[in-house]
Structure formats: structure tokens, C-alpha cells
């Protein structure tokens, strides 16, 4: 560095990372891996908000998309990730409509999720009922939990 500060960093300016720092970093990494969010903002601000669950055979991704039909959504999968995009439209209600309240939002969205394991991309199923999207992603054989029997010696 070219600039040398007269009152430079004190000797204790750099510290050994504490357990707390390490834990924070680990948490950030976990969240980022799952949501593709920018560091420091785990999962925040990306539409649609998503819930992900798993059982031994599948991953389940759910999102609330009121007013949307399955064919208006663009869903694609690769080995470990799922992308959901589309546009929520709210139709205009005619010239003479005077709004008292306008809380519902319209607009475009696109979201990418990385799942914890590989999926069988051939068998992914998506459905949209009552404004809730459910994507069922079967786990690839390698990602399924295996029961290992311990043999008595």
C-alpha cells in the first residue's frame, strides 16, 4: 500500500477469528448455498418466499403465488437447482375504477434455489392449487439416505 497512515492500525487491529465469527460465517454460507442470496442477506427480498422440506425420497418446494396458474410459471431444474420465474399480473379494472386500497402487487419475478443434494430431473412434478405452488423433486439415488446394518462380529 502506498499510503502510510501516521496513526495506523493498532497492533490489536487484526484479531484471531473467534468461535462466534466462525459460526456466523458458517451460517451465512449455509443460507447462501440454499437461497442464492447475497452474503449478509440470507433469503431476504427475493420473491416468491419459499419453504423447502424433505423426506427420504423427495424434496418439496412450496411458494405462495395467489392468482397464478401452473402454466403461467416457468419452472426448470438442473442437477441440484430449481428455478422459478414468471410474472404476476393484476388486470386493470376499467377506466372508472377508483381505488380505496391497493395492497396487492404485480410484477416479474425469478428465483433460483440450490437444493442440498442431487435430484432426478426427469421426474420433477409441479402443481399449482389455490394459489400455492408445490414442486416435488425426487432425490437422485445417491442423495437418498441409506440404512446400513451393523453386523455383529
Amino acid at each position, binding site marked *: 500500500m502506498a499510503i502510510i497512515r501516521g496513526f495506523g492500525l493498532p497492533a490489536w487491529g487484526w484479531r484471531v477469528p473467534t468461535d462466534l465469527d466462525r459460526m456466523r460465517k458458517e451460517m451465512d454460507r449455509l443460507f447462501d448455498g440454499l437461497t442464492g442470496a447475497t452474503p449478509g442477506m440470507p*433469503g431476504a427480498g427475493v420473491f416468491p418466499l419459499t419453504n423447502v422440506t424433505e*423426506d427420504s425420497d423427495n424434496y418439496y418446494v412450496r411458494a405462495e403465488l395467489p392468482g397464478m396458474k401452473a402454466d403461467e410459471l416457468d419452472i426448470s431444474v438442473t442437477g441440484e437447482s430449481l428455478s422459478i420465474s414468471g410474472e404476476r399480473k393484476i388486470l386493470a379494472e*376499467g377506466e372508472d375504477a377508483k381505488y380505496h386500497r391497493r395492497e396487492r402487487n404485480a410484477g416479474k419475478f425469478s428465483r433460483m434455489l440450490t437444493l442440498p443434494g442431487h435430484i432426478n430431473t426427469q421426474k420433477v412434478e409441479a402443481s399449482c392449487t389455490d394459489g400455492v405452488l408445490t414442486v416435488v423433486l425426487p432425490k437422485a439415488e445417491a442423495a437418498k439416505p441409506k440404512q446400513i446394518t451393523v453386523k455383529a462380529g
Partner: protein
Amino acid sequence: MTEAEAKALEAREKREVASAAEQTRPGLTFKPAVDIFETQTGITLLADMPGVKAGDLNIDLREDVITLSGEVERPETAGETEILKEYRTGRYVRQFSLSDTIDQAKIEAELQDGVLRLVLPKAEKAVPRKIAVKAK
């Protein structure tokens, strides 16, 4: 392309109804987002209630207060474990007071893809009329 079309949707957290006094049952209660607009003939209310089936939606009208309440079934099955949770589910409740200019007998409700459309027609006397002024 209009401004509305170009805009990207932002994620918003669901608004939980906070008042403890209103709660008599376990579980979470949310306030659905609504649009309300008025035309010459009536008032239309649109409410986002994702996860509510037509049979689980109650619209109750008494003493000029209309109450919308929708029950939501837990979408997850028993064997699933959580990996990521960004939104919670629960019933929706919201109340509106109506003016007496609404023809309460002609209220219509329709629920499609989690969006309720409630049409509240104005009573005959409240529909504005043009009054012709005669010149003498």
C-alpha cells in the same frame, strides 16, 4: 411496456394479526392483502388468500361489518422435515365495515387460485344519477 409491467416483484412478509384478544384458537392468523376499488355500480374487493379452498372460506355479514376468514390446511405431510422456511401458514382474517349504501342481498363472492373477488353492489338509491337542469 408500462411501468407496472417492468417492475420486479418484491417479497413481502405476511402480516400477522397481532392482537391477542382476537385469538381464541391456536395457530397463526394473517391479514390478507386487499385491493378495494369503487365504480359507478359498486365496490369490489380482491383479497390474496393463498391455500384457502372455497369450502374453507367464510364470509360473514352482520351489522354492516363484513368478516372474511379462510382456513388453511397445513401443506406439509407428516414425514417431511424442514430445510428452509421463509413463510408461515395459518388462517386469514380481515374485517371491513360497509356503508348502508351497499345492497347486502346482492353481494357476490368468487374464489379462484387463492384470490377472492367480492362484489358489493351499491343500493339503487346510491347509484349516482345525472340531474337535468331545465332552462326556463
